[in-house]
């Protein structure tokens, strides 16, 4: 595909000659995000302002050209992939922190601001931005808002949507709007709430007002080993069942721990069937009390080799192991397919054993590293892309894992989004009427379907791999 005649020139008149990329070799850089499937855009526009974003979308609307907003491209569900061609609208040049208000504890940022950078700058005021995806060194706040991203500390603090107070957005007709803001309880429909997590299919985000939190005076981080994933899962439920919601409660399986330890030397016990990383924060008296209670509960649930970080450096190292776990898996195989699904927390042992069996069936190593407290699993299917045959197997295994998630009453994605990757599976969890209601929102905001087409909603031309050949799989009764 190429852009219609003259469109590239129109785009250049808005953003300047150098800010439109349309040479074939250059475009390949923008083919992918962090997911499996890629597609080369017809042009990339590097926007520097709301006005430019608006003007670019107006041109796209006039010519009915797809527009896909794009941040750092770290997304894991194909949200930034231009699957129908068109314009990749890159917003990473819009990377100013416009304001930090230490009294109101808010920040106003442009969409290209990197997640971790915001927390680093906010720290000067004793504040931090809570949602912390593992890609936080690279991913952008705009991308986080588009995907409603999570992270380890969302167990206690909530996901992105709980921290976005308002946004400036550009709709499919190029019009610019503010939705919500500093005050609670706005009058009218909660457009901001609907737009967060809409994966670039309803708007482009050009400014975000977020809530910042006070950095807790004390943090305690504990590493505990367990003989098995089942035992660790049981311990997770026991902690929360005792009325304690830690700031984070993360699990890694044996495969992951082996890779992480070899890479980071963080002191992870490599003989364990699973390890938990538990963190509580607050005043020091409180973190001591909670950590003592947690240690006791974990010990009662087969926890051993428990080690609390004694220094900030030690804590950093434990977290480096967790957040860098997926990179460390490269020691096992060069490529990974990172999946994302959520089950009711009590189903963790069942889903993890199903995931293990699926891996064995497809002869693919699987490493689990995930947000156990939320029931949000992340199986990593490890493979070597140089073996071209394997990709189909990888996708089939991933699909089967998701199917198992859904059969256990779970959801397709906890924090990565549906995007391109999972759109075909949406009918597994939603009826036609459910999807129709969502589509009404899409039609109201983007009647011509120019914003990130081919995402979220099932595309009749893209069938799940397994579904055609498999029948009789019972999905657990829907929750109503």
């Amino acid at each position, binding site marked *: 595909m190429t852009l219609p005649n003259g469109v590239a020139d129109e785009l250049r008149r808005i953003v300047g000659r150098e800010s439109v990329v349309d040479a074939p070799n250059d475009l390949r850089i923008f083919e992918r995000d962090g997911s499996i499937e890629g597609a080369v855009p017809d042009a990339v526009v590097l926007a520097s302002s709301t006005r430019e974003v608006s003007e670019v979308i107006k041109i796209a609307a006039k010519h009915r050209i797809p527009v896909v907003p794009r941040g750092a491209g770290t997304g894991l569900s194909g949200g930034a992939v231009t699957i129908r061609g068109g314009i990749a609208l890159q917003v990473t040049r819009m990377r100013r922190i416009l304001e930090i208000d230490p*009294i109101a504890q808010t920040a106003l940022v442009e969409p290209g601001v990197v997640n971790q950078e915001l927390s680093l700058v906010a720290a000067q005021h004793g504040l931090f931005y809570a949602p912390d995806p593992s890609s936080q060194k690279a991913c952008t706040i705009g991308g986080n808002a588009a*995907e*409603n991203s999570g992270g380890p500390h969302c167990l206690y603090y909530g*996901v992105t*949507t709980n921290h976005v107070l308002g946004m400036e957005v550009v709709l499919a007709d190029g019009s610019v*709007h503010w*939705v919500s803001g*500093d*005050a*609670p309880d*706005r*009058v*009218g*429909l*909660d457009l*901001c*709430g*609907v737009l*967060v997590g809409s994966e670039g299919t309803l708007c482009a985000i050009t400014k975000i007002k977020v809530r910042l939190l006070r950095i807790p*005076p004390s943090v305690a981080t504990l590493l505990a080993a367990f003989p098995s994933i089942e035992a660790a899962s049981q311990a997770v*439920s026991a902690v*929360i*069942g*005792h*009325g304690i*919601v830690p700031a984070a409660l993360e699990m890694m399986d044996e495969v992951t721990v082996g890779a992480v330890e070899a890479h980071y030397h963080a002191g992870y016990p490599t003989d364990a069937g699973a390890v938990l990383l538990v963190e509580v924060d*607050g*005043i020091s*008296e*409180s973190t*001591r*009390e909670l950590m003592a209670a947690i240690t006791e509960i974990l010990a009662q649930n087969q926890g051993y080799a428990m080690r609390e970080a004694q220094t900030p450096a030690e804590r950093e190292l434990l977290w480096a192991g967790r957040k860098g776990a997926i990179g460390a898996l490269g020691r096992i195989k060069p490529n990974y397919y990172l999946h994302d699904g*959520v089950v*009711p927390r*009590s189903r963790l042992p069942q889903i993890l054993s199903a995931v293990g069996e699926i891996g064995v069936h497809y002869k693919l190593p699987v490493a689990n590293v995930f947000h156990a407290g939320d*029931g*949000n699993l992340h199986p990593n299917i490890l493979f070597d892309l140089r073996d071209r045959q394997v990709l189909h197997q990888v996708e089939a295994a991933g699909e089967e894992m998701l199917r198992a998630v859904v059969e256990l*009453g779970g*959801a*397709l*994605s*906890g*924090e*990565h*989004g*549906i995007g391109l990757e999972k759109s075909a599976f*949406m009918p597994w*969890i*939603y009826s036609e*009427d*459910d999807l*129709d*209601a*969502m589509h*009404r*929102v899409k039609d*109201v905001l983007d009647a011509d379907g120019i914003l990130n087409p081919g995402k*979220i909603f099932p595309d009749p031309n893209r069938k799940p791999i397994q579904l055609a050949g498999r029948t009789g799989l019972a999905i657990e009764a829907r*929750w*109503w």
Partner: protein
Amino acid sequence: MVTSPTVEKPASADELARRLHEAATSKLAVVPVGGGRASGMGDPLDRCDVLLHTTLLDRVIEHSQADMVVSVEAGITLEALQAELAKAGQFLPLDPFNSPGHTIGGLLATGWTGPLRMRYGSPRDFLIGIRVALPDGTLATGGGRVVKNVSGYDMMKLHYGALGSLGVIVAASFKVFPMPLHDVTVTSDGRWDDADRALATPVTPSALEIFSDGRVLARYTGSRAAVDRAVDDLGWKVEERSIWERHSGRAPARWARIAAPRTVLRELVETLPRGAGWWASPGIGVAHWAIASDASSVRDMRARTESVGGALVMLAAPDELMRQAGAWGTPPSTLEIQRRLKNAFDPDHVLNPGRFVV
């Protein structure tokens, strides 16, 4: 209103959807009714042909204690739900005013909250699934029963606080919370300065209320160490926990909710008419005003509230005052988009006609 409206009390979500569809087909105006605790909210209706009660939809569909997730039908009262959750040492952190008797559906539709919102957020933050009957007779679900979910659009946000203007909520799923390990309330007569002190201490209160008579209530929940430290730091008098139940019972006959950025709430509340009765949640940015004055004072207060980016919404008032003051104030800047959303879900405007913003 010339004739009195028909009263429908469907016993299932399917039946409710059918009744709604029948009414919509005949272009009859439908007013969803839960516990009736917020029936004064909104502008006077243009028409009212059918009162569609959800009160027979009062089941707990599933309470998964280990997962800390509950799914309920919309007509269940908050108290009935809390009683069920309490059996497992859990609760929904929602303590709305004009209690008891709110239904879950009503609370979601109106967006009414209470003091605990400071610590736990509002249902907007812990509503994880929703099922809604639409005027075309379909039942549409969003979300699910897992605590973290980005599968598709966030339909919970679309209906939360929409006052039943897009559909009638028939069921909902929530993330619930463990009862706090410790729960202590302290009080002072120190007005805003004491409220500010409580906000600045290292342990943040879970609820903080200040009243027009100068009284301040601070509620601390969590580990014993944290609660003790907060209570020691403040040195205020310990209060019975039942004070919160009495507080939630508040519902003046004429009242309004003032929502504003937290940083300007004090300034704003101080401009209320001399001698006015009010209470405020400075940690949230919300105040409630028992209106003893006329519509012009409401309009003045609203103008001041809107000038700082806030909103003054009437929660109940005699029809005349409601007409003169208007329930909502200046429409949002996205009104045109909101109207198109309304049309997509309720093209004939049969749901609560005239009552909401759209």
